[in-house]
């Protein structure tokens, strides 16, 4: 498990080893720690825009003693057939899930790029820039990755945030569906149905998704 201080130290350490600037997007437990939603995590989910940047990141992870593991027991098998499935690295109790360009079929949308919650730059000789996605995006991506504990994380985000923007979430889901994501509508609708047991969600947001099908 990584806590906030561990994550900070690890990212600083990673940045000292960089041979080029690397920019990436955080959306897993690590993103939730940046927000303050949780204190520790074992999954660090990162999305890169280019293969080059991911390769550079992998080089450093290997240097720090992380080794590649199989994703079979962690993700739903049918999702792992997708060409945008992650490469995973593990050391002790911490695990990195590294995606490029897409999270399975979900794109790095213009809104994801523009509306980030935070930007953390780790500056050494080169800079590691971590862009933390908005909470609505975190919920969508956690619904898509659908691993053990992902639903618990979604519940935490939605329950603890009185300003959760369902309109923003549904707009983004529709954009993703219109741009080739065949799973997002089903995944998010299923998650919202489960969430209804814990938080109030207006029916109109469900209908907005149904009308898009």
């Amino acid at each position, binding site marked *: 498990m990584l806590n*906030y201080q561990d994550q*900070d130290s690890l*990212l*600083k350490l990673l*940045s000292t080893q960089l041979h080029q600037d690397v920019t990436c997007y955080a959306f897993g437990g690590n993103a939730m720690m*940046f*927000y*303050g*939603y949780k*204190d520790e995590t074992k999954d660090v989910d990162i999305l890169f825009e280019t293969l080059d940047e991911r390769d550079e990141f992998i080089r450093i992870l290997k240097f720090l003693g992380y080794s590649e593991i199989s994703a079979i027991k962690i993700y739903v098998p049918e999702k792992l057939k997708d060409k945008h499935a992650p490469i995973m690295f593990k050391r002790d109790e911490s695990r990195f899930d590294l995606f490029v360009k897409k999270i399975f079929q979900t794109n790095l949308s213009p809104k994801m790029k523009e*509306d*980030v*919650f*935070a*930007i*953390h*730059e*780790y*500056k*050494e000789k080169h*800079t590691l820039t971590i862009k*933390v996605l908005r909470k609505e995006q975190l919920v969508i991506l956690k619904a898509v990755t659908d691993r053990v504990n992902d639903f618990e994380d979604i519940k935490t985000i939605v329950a*603890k*945030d*009185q300003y959760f923007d369902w309109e923003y979430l549904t707009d983004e889901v529709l954009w993703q569906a219109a741009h080739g994501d065949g799973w997002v509508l089903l995944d998010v609708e299923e998650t919202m149905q489960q969430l209804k047991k814990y938080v109030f969600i207006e029916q109109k947001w469900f209908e907005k998704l149904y009308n898009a099908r």
Partner: protein
Amino acid sequence: MNLKNQEELLHTLEGLHTIETIAETLNITTQSALNLITKLKRQQYVTVSGKGKTKRLYKITQIKQRPRVPGMFDIINKYSPHMKLNPWYDHQVHGTYGPEEALIDAIQTQSFRVILASLHLFRHINNWPKLYQLAKQKDSWQKIGALHDLAKLYFKIRHLPQKYQQLKTKKKYYIIKEYPTKETKFQPITQKWHVNIPFRLGDIQKTIGG
């Protein structure tokens, strides 16, 4: 206090409070409220503003308020006395970060207000070689030169060394895309640096507090 109770407590208290409003909301004594705040502060759920004789305000949230390191918005707000920015994302830089870096980042935002407020950073630029190197990496030295000359019209700032005033190219730039210089007062700067300045005199007045 168990975890469930603490969650309910934070849900009840979320927002801005004085010690009296906390005591009143929870129907406890002021001393108990102070003890509670101390505990929540240790757990990072509370930040305090107000020192000395100023009434203390407690910001309580359901999520932890992580310690921050300064980023672009913090540096600009620190040095811009009249025009303050309301950050639309949380920018933090872990490592060396000062007015030189913040100025370069401000130009990259292409935001009218951010660039306008960042003019005050020129009063705190000490390291011209560093600024020149950083600007060159982002292809924005001419923009820096133009903004420097603009700032010089209104504030007392350090002199830009002559060697950095030589233009290597005559490429035309915009501080903000498609916003040409309209103020005749700024035309000489545009001609010198080949950079279009989007601001009007009224905009500058806002940042100098006129």
